[in-house]
């Protein structure tokens, strides 16, 4: 029974694991092009399991900013996980105790969360562990491979690989922005603000991590005030 639950989770997690491998390949290539080595890049992926947060973290590391800036950046950018963990917590109910929850929390990413919530049968610990296995391997392994590829390839190809990550961010943002006006508003507002931080001389001195935090908080707060989401919806 336990084995079957675990295997069922693994097979559901397979497509996510493959997707993670390709996305994190871009992260590994970018991290190496910014001066990290492939193993350290893989360590970041293994311990963090989050794309946007890791990218922002890389920005903070490269800028040699303070640890507080790192904590603040992660708190803001990864805040949405609190919502997912809350929802997952209620879905798991009393069947899964505190200790296993400490483990499950580690890999509660957008995609694993979506898979867990869409399951019809009750969630069990072996199923959750199975769900996490391939995504964790894919995310870490992809980063390592991207980092190694980035280390041996010439600079021009390396910068082309590094762009993959931006391409993926664009692929995540554009479709919902096309369909939902409020999302489009959030995107445009964030773009305008981040352009100001990049190009206005007085604002250029603001460090990269703080600039991302300000752009994110301002754009999300304005849109939350103007276009509140429906009551039943629990965010991403």
């Amino acid at each position, binding site marked *: 029974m336990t084995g079957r639950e675990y295997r069922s989770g693994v097979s559901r997690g397979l497509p996510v694991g493959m997707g993670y491998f390709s996305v994190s390949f871009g992260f590994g290539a970018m991290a190496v092009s910014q001066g990290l080595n492939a193993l350290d890049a893989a360590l970041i992926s293994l311990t963090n399991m989050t794309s946007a947060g890791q990218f922002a973290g890389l920005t903070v590391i490269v800028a040699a900013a303070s640890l507080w800036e790192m904590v603040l950046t992660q708190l803001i950018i990864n805040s949405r996980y609190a919502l997912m963990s809350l929802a997952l917590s*209620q879905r798991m109910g009393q069947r899964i105790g505190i200790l296993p929850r400490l483990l499950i929390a580690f890999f509660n990413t957008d995609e694993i969360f979506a898979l867990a919530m869409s399951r019809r049968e009750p969630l069990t610990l072996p199923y959750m562990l199975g769900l996490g296995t391939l995504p964790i391997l894919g995310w870490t392994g992809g980063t390592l491979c991207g980092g190694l590829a980035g280390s041996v390839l010439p600079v021009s190809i390396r910068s082309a690989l590094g762009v993959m990550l931006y391409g993926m961010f664009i692929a995540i943002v554009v479709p919902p922005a096309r369909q939902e006006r409020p999302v489009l508003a959030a995107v445009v507002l964030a773009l305008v603000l981040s352009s100001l931080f990049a190009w206005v001389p007085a604002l250029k001195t603001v460090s990269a991590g703080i600039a991302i935090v300000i752009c994110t908080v301002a754009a999300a707060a304005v849109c939350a005030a103007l276009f509140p989401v429906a009551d039943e919806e629990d965010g991403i």
Partner: protein
Amino acid sequence: MNLYLYIAAMALTTYLIRVLPLTVFRRPIRSRFLRSFLHYVPYACLSAMTFPAILTSTESVLSGAAALAVAVVLAYRGKSLIVVALSSSAAVLVCQCAAHLLG
């Protein structure tokens, strides 16, 4: 500063955000504003991180702009994540080859 301190701070913060609502604070969020705010955060931060940084991430602004344009057009047409990413990467390679050939 030590790289591993950064990684530890980053991993610990991210873990706490995920683990506390699963173990300690388990009541649903009542504030509609807060739920809406969290809904818009990913779009806002991904956009802010991508632009204008993508323009200066390659050897020339031109190749960065090409990557941006290709990705936006393909994503708008609903192409998959990996197709969009690889195509924007290919756009950079094409621009760089052209730049080298033209001297």
